[in-house]
């Protein structure tokens, strides 16, 4: 509708006209789905999922801002639960929403036991692990990790709001290791915690309880770590550090020892982190309004959503 600029004869309205669809505004998470395309939860100020080829070509987008089923209010986390099915942590609507990769709405899960999903990950048995980050109300703090089965039924909640070991304050992002351990980044406590499956538990056998792993990560190795995002791949845990300089800290999963710091200066704020099957990293840079593609050694491979 840029013809409306003629109404007032000012360049201001040109800027108000729709911008290019490849531009992102506060992207929160980017993943590579089984079709090889990159799906971006976009995000804090858009309310959509934007789809790109890995080399940065915009493909399509879907989703709109609102309260209706299928609409989004701050898509804060993203997961491909099965081939062609995406789960969106629709944070401000306090629900998980399921879509096809083409954007067709499938179903929604919203209930008191689920709380408010900030992040979603998947265990090896197909169950979903969701971070209930609370409502950002100081008078009613709440936090937990919620496990759902493949049908979206809540299996269990574990952990509570607090500042002690095993407690959570604004769990922002989470990841699950192939062995079933849950790694959580907390904004409120500015720390990283690992919850391990109780000994003797096999996820396939049913509900397993989780226990925090004391002494993980190795604090002597991670002074000043200000974690925001997390991903697990093999023996490595990748942590998005939002302090100076913004970077990715690579920890050894078993020991929690720092192995490397990569990507310094490649992004402004690593809000979301994803490791693809080829070992490369996709970083949703919500301050830079871009998605950064990094090699395993931290070299920049590409940028999505660049102006």
């Amino acid at each position, binding site marked *: 509708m840029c013809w*409306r600029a003629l109404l007032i004869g000012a360049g*201001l309205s040109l*800027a108000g006209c*729709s911008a290019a669809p490849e531009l992102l505004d506060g992207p929160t998470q980017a993943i590579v789905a089984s079709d090889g395309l990159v799906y971006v939860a976009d995000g804090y100020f858009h309310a*959509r999922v934007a789809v790109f080829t890995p080399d940065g070509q915009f493909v399509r987008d879907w989703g*709109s801002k*609102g309260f209706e089923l299928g609409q989004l209010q701050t898509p804060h986390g993203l997961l491909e639960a099965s081939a062609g099915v995406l789960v969106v942590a629709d944070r401000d609507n306090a629900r998980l929403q399921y879509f096809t990769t083409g954007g067709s709405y499938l179903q929604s899960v919203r209930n008191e036991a689920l709380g408010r999903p900030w992040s979603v990950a998947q265990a090896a048995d197909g169950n979903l692990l969701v971070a209930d980050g609370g409502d950002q109300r100081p008078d009613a703090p709440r936090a937990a990790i919620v496990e759902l089965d493949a049908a979206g039924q809540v299996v269990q909640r574990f952990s509570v709001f607090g500042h002690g070991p095993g407690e959570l304050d604004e769990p922002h992002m989470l990841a699950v290791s192939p062995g079933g351990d849950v790694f959580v980044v907390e904004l409120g406590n500015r720390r990283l915690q690992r919850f391990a499956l109780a000994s003797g538990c096999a996820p396939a056998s049913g509900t397993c309880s989780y226990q925090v792993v004391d002494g993980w990560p190795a604090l002597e190795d991670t002074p000043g770590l200000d974690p925001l995002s997390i991903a697990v791949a093999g023996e490595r845990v990748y942590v998005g550090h939002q302090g100076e300089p913004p970077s990715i800290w690579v920890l050894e999963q078993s020991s929690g020892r720092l192995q490397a710091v990569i990507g310094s200066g490649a992004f402004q704020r690593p809000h979301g982190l994803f490791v693809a099957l080829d070992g490369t990293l996709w970083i949703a840079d919500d301050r830079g309004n871009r998605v950064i593609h990094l090699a395993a050694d931290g070299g920049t491979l590409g940028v999505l959503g660049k102006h």
Partner: protein
Amino acid sequence: MQHRCLSALALALCGSLTSAQAAPPAPALSLGLDTALTTSPQGPTVSTLGGAVSIAGAYRFAGGLGVSLVGGFTAVSLEIEGQSTRRGTYPGNLLLGASFDCSPLELLDTGVSFQLGAPLALYPGGIDDNRLAELAYTMAASAEGFRAPFLWQTNVVPFVLGARASFRALDWLTLTGHLSPAYLLSVNQRPSRLAVASGLDASVTLEPLMAHAGLWYFASTLPLENRQLDQLAARLGAGTSWQGQRLMLDLSIGLDAPYGAFESAPHPWWGLGVAADVHFGSVR
């Protein structure tokens, strides 16, 4: 600086023409009340009811200089199927203004103004509260037909320039144009931005009856591809006018894509309201 230039331009224009063509404006006090009610947006599982009230006071000194104060509040009720109803009331920005009016020609009234806003339209904090406030402010701006959008811009300090010209084409027909570029200084992590509001309005007055129709346009420079933040609105009204006192019933309708939080709404937004203006002193 831009305001000073506009004022200087207006003063020069008025100074060169006023003495010969028309008497300068006399002192006057005016009070205005503007209300709007809307149920937009509605959807299969969402029902809303929103309202906005704005109150304006202005005093014009002898010679055309004036001061003004505009404020307001908005209220919203949001029902989502399967959830409890959420309600909230939120203040609009408080706009303190200075203006200069003059009549360079017998049939032409002009004015320039500058408004500085106190940023009262802020998100309250909690996630649900923020989303409800966002909806309320969006409803308020649109239901009023974007006549006063800077009251409802969130998390910013508005610096608003204004220019207005009214031409009495016929004894009973007046054409008015408004243009208000603004700089919206952000008070949160969002970028500061430019915005513009403009309008063209034609009014017919056969005292004591009055009717008007106009187009209003609002745009901001936020680079939001997926949210429509420029809008074209129509506003129609009818009522009574006598010696500058007015009581009007106004209907505002969105003419293009749904605005902001109304994305994918099946129908254009609308607003219905009552506006009243009372003047004490000289009226031109």
